[in-house]
């Protein structure tokens, strides 16, 4: 469907370098990266608003690198929606139809149809400056979808809408994708990638540093940056070694972890997902490979329950549900024990 082959583009003192992406028909591809990582520039290259310095862009088995924007049939929804303030909602949605010069009746019919689908039919005669962000986004989507694009590019579609509306828009996007529309969605929020994508690419400083299914990327991040994007907070600088047939990692603070794999480098970074760590208010009876005693330093309410910060010679962040938190009956300065299985440690080489 969409193939980017060795795309490079220099933009001031920033550059997209050797980008290779292959997106299949009907896929929902999320490009994850911080602001300034080159996500938007990449979308603009795909849409044809900029030309790459080198490399090729293929759409539906055709090389479109030199093709005009108007000939690519790619829809792009901008981060701030780029709604035309000099037109009504109707004028915005119908804008692309006028270039094709169909009859007035056809225009009316098409605009109504897409507006109904996006739940904005009641706004058609309004000017756009009093609309909410959620409404503006629906107008922007309707305005793009009316062109029947083969590929929909979304630049941070959830960045400026209220949390309460995010589920709505996610449902809409999922529905569009299920109907067969291929979507490339750019975001800095890994949760969007988790809930929407069939495949994730992580972009950092103009490079794609990891690509794969969301499960693969978030369970096995290739470096600290990806781990951070995946919401992981437990990072330990360690030296790996072997002892009595087991594989171990010694932290700077001398804590020793037992691990399950043998392919570790001599030193590097060990990461642990906060939901892989278990918390107890008394010493667990059975012998765990990794069991450490610590003190609760801070309790922070989080999206999913509570995030507990524990000092056990190293600082650990552990996510628990509100219910578990009530059962544990712990507070700041409580004595706790933490455990995690050897296979939940992910080792990253070098000192990244």
């Amino acid at each position, binding site marked *: 469907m969409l193939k980017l082959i060795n795309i490079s583009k220099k933009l001031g003192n920033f550059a997209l370098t050797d980008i290779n992406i292959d997106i299949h028909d009907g896929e929902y591809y999320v490009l994850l990266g911080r602001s300034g990582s080159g996500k938007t520039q990449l979308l603009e290259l795909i849409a044809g608003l900029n030309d790459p310095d080198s490399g090729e862009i293929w759409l539906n088995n055709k090389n479109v690198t030199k093709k005009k*924007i108007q000939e690519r049939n790619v829809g*792009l929804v901008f981060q*701030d929606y780029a709604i*035309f*303030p000099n037109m009504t909602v109707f004028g915005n949605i119908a804008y*692309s139809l006028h*270039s094709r010069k169909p009859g007035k009746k056809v225009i009316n019919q098409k605009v109504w149809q897409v507006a109904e689908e996006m739940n904005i039919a009641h706004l058609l005669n309004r000017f756009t400056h009093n609309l909410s962000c959620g409404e503006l986004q629906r107008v922007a989507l309707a305005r*793009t979808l009316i062109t029947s694009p083969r590929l929909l590019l979304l630049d941070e579609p959830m960045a*400026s809408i209220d949390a309460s509306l995010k589920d709505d828009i996610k449902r809409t996007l999922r529905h569009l994708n299920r109907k067969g529309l291929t979507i490339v969605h750019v975001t800095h929020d890994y949760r969007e990638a988790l809930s929407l994508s069939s495949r994730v690419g992580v972009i950092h400083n103009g490079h794609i540093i990891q690509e794969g299914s969301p499960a693969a990327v978030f369970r096995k991040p290739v470096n600290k940056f990806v781990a951070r994007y995946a919401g992981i907070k437990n990072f330990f600088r360690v030296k790996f070694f072997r002892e009595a047939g087991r594989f171990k990692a010694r932290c700077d603070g001398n804590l020793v972890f037992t691990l399950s794999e043998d392919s570790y480098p001599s030193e590097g970074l060990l990461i642990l997902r906060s939901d892989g760590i278990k918390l107890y208010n008394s010493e667990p009876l059975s012998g765990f490979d990794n069991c450490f005693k610590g003190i609760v330093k801070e309790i922070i309410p989080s999206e999913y329950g509570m995030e507990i910060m524990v000092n056990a010679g190293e600082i650990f962040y552990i996510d628990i549900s509100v219910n578990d938190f009530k059962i544990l009956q712990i507070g700041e300065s409580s004595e706790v024990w933490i455990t995690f299985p050897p296979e939940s440690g992910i080792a990253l080489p070098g000192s990244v």
Partner: protein
Amino acid sequence: MIKYNPFNWIILILSSLVLLFILAPLAGMLLDTTGKEFFETVKDREVQESIWLTLWVSFAATFFFAIGSIPLAWLLARKKFPLKNVVQGIIDLPVVLPHTAAGIAILGFISRDGFLGKTADILGLTLINNPAGIALAMAFVSLPFLINSARDGFAAVPERLEKAALTLGASRSRVFFTISLPLAWRSIMTGFIMMFARGMSEFGAVVIVAYHPMIAPVLIYERFSSFGLKYARPASVLFIIVALAVFILLRLISIRKKEIHISSDAETY
């Protein structure tokens, strides 16, 4: 509400003096003109023709030069090109030139020995002492007002709106006429009015290119130098009133044009 401390008093007094400096001579001129003198001037055919000539020639100059200036303003706002600063400097040049010197330059250009003069001659036209020559002189000194204002207007149009229009299949020209031009319209109209007003009040450049037919500023000067202050005054008052009326009318028309909220769009991110 202004609090009356010494600092505010000083600001108030200085501001009042400046305003007084602008208003006092005009008020004095108005008060010194009797109703009889004024109405006689209103009926004076020579004065009527001269004011009418000033208005339409300045309007025509602004209108025709706008056709070329608006695309140039867009180019300056949107595109990067070599020597852009030099081009910007050239556009501002007429503002710093003495207007009589500008008149001399225009005269050389449109006289029978000049390029434009020769071309016009072939077509059987004489530009010197002709409204076309006056229009050229007016445009020369007033063009920067239109170009700079329109350029600022285009620069204020968010580029992503133009990009969005392109991704929706619009051609470059359609994007220009449906997005860039309407959104920069207020600044363009302001520039248009400023250029028109500046052209209308031009004396130095025009008097060198065409003493006859007489535009209003030349007529006022001629009456002053031939008959004195008393005879120049009613014509001046009439011209100022007409110019003000036209100025206010044009501003009202441009303001009435539907207000476009670029800023509200920008607030969404």
